[in-house]
């Protein structure tokens, strides 16, 4: 084609393919995080749900404290606590139906426990006796995921597969503020939006990725604003307001279930404790900031609302605490037992059938153990 031919082709206005395909306005999050507790919206919240959330928050806080204590006793290799973030953990678990799937990160054992998982099984990874301590299919909880953001495409794929099969299944995937910087976050959200997969992304913005504060992580107006770049709605919510988190997630789940596609929810919360028991948070943040956040505590917020409205009395509070103590005592007791381990398990699950090479290696270890008199 020569330049000449182009001249006749003059058409000043561009082809119609240019129209934006979606209106960005409804995708944008509000400027302020959504709140329920302590606002007018609280009156509309279901008291039964609030009470259930409360009981789980109390149990969750106790679970976190117990797990942290277990690291001090050497019963857990490491524990990334979700203390202060229980509202997100609990709401994420409670908002799903049994048939739905939860995709937790390493910090989200509490969400898995609130969904029904045996705490001992949930803590297997962190105790160190195996990687995933439970059958993911049993409670539809994917393995706790350590490589950041890598669980997000899994959630999208699973939700997409379910939809292709005609099953009414929603996947809820959890990730931290730091995790949003990973390429996998981007790719997962893009796939989800293109496929209109029934998936909800819950970002717990707890202010830090280990030592790195949000300001070094992103320059975005909010993490929820990332949604518009994928063509899905972004929602901003007070992550310490269990009622608000539950409501926003419930909306997103409903939307996903109805075929409306994915939603990105940013819950603003705070990691009150160190990154894990191995971390020294005083190296990168001051007590004052922590204290500010301790005063915006998820349990206190909900307790205040419930007691003010007469939905919870001292007996109710005590009952919640007693239940939490019972759970903790049981957990403590069972975690104090040494797990029974079979070294041959090292070879049992690498493939459906061990390869000839692995059979040789298994025989070698077996022989070594027999020589040591340590036959399993």
């Amino acid at each position: 084609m020569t330049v000449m031919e182009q001249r006749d082709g003059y058409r000043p206005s561009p082809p119609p393919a240019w129209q934006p395909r979606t209106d960005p306005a409804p995708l944008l999050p509000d400027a302020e995080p959504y709140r329920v507790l302590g606002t007018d919206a609280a009156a509309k919240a279901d008291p039964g749900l609030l009470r259930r959330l409360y009981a789980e928050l109390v149990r969750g806080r106790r679970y976190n404290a117990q797990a942290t204590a277990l690291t001090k006793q050497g019963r857990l290799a490491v524990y990334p606590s979700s203390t202060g973030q229980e509202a997100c953990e609990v709401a994420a678990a409670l908002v799903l139906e049994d048939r739905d799937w939860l995709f937790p990160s390493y910090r989200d054992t509490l969400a898995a426990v609130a969904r029904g998982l045996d705490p001992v099984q949930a803590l297997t990874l962190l105790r160190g006796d195996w990687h995933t301590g439970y059958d993911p299919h049993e409670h539809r909880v994917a393995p706790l995921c350590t490589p950041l953001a890598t669980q997000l495409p899994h959630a999208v794929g699973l939700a997409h597969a379910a939809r292709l099969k005609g099953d009414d299944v929603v996947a809820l995937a959890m990730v931290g503020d730091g995790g949003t910087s990973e390429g996998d976050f981007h790719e997962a959200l893009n796939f989800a939006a293109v496929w209109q997969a029934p998936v909800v992304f819950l970002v717990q913005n707890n202010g830090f990725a280990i030592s790195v504060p949000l300001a070094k992580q992103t320059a975005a107006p909010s993490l929820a604003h990332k949604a518009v770049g994928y063509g899905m709605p972004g929602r901003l919510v007070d992550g310490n307001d269990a009622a608000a988190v539950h409501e926003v997630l419930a909306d997103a789940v409903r939307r996903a279930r109805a075929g409306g596609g994915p939603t990105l929810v940013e819950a603003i919360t705070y990691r009150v404790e160190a990154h894990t028991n191995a971390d020294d948070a005083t190296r990168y943040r001051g007590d004052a900031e922590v204290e500010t956040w301790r005063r915006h505590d998820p349990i206190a917020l909900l307790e205040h609302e419930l007691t003010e409205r007469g939905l919870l009395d001292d007996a109710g509070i005590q009952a919640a605490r007693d239940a939490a103590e019972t759970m903790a005592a049981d957990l403590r007791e069972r975690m104090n037992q040494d797990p029974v381990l079979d070294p041959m398990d090292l070879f049992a699950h690498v493939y459906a059938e061990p390869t000839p090479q692995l059979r040789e290696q298994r025989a070698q270890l077996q022989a070594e153990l027999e020589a040591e008199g340590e036959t399993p």
Partner: protein
Amino acid sequence: MTTVAVKPATMAQALTRAMRDAMAADPTVHVLGEDVGTLGGVFRVTDGLAKEFGEDRCTDTPLAEAGILGTAVGMAMYGLRPVVEMQFDAFAYPAFEQLVSHVARMRNRTRGAMPLPITIRVPYGGGIGGVEHHSDSSEAYYLATPGLHVVTPATVADAYGLLRAAIASDDPVVLLEPKRLYWSKDSWNPEEPTAVEPIGRAVVRRSGRSATLITYGPSVPVCLEAAEAARAEGWDLEVVDLRSLVPFDDETVCASVRRTGRAVVVHESGGFGGPGGEIAARVTERCFHHLEAPVLRVAGFDIPYPPPMLERHHLPGVDRILDAVGRLQWEAES
């Protein structure tokens, strides 16, 4: 069903047919990747699948390899059998974390509760005049990743058989497809039922008594050619086509080497840290006292894959193989 090809068929056609048969037999088989749908893939290996099975079964994804493999993990978690196409070897690297940290380990992490029956098709190797990043031989990376099966066909029939086996496998399989054999033909008949090759079995492609050439994928035809040429030198070479790198068929390989007493490993991938080291080491461990000479290696140089105009200098050819055979200490000096 439409007719795919008349005989003789190409390797590309056999691969297409394998997916088509698997998709017809099992509704959980889904193909996904870049350009695999409407276009039928840049090598046309998925040609016609989207038309026949619909876009939900053969899906053009967004352009993001970690996303492709990562969503395939999720699909497999839900019971599907994804067949993922990576467009070229080097473009599988963005998916490396998903591959190593999830695909290869999920069964193990979950004590067998969550196997991932994913097939990852990776066109690999050079010899097609591709510009940079289009001719990598990346098998060393897959080999060193426990939890993956790694297979690679050298014939049209094996392409069908191994891909069917990969899709049928309950474990993740990396199928390395030799690009430059895509259009190689042999008399495989796509209209007749064809065997699913069990994964893990090498095959003796040519019997011989002087020495064994241990090879796979794109180097198999080169070794067969070298074996023919070697007759002029008085050597009767055996050629073993590994087909499966993981698991490794020690039995077939060692039986051959014990018979011949000499071996050369031939592959296109770089020598240093490449599969040849593993193969030479394990053969030596097992056959030391049968060896008249050290197991030698003929491999690509330890350089980034060269530009098209120089690739012939890099690729192991007949002369280089014969040269190595000549160095197998025929008059053993000790």
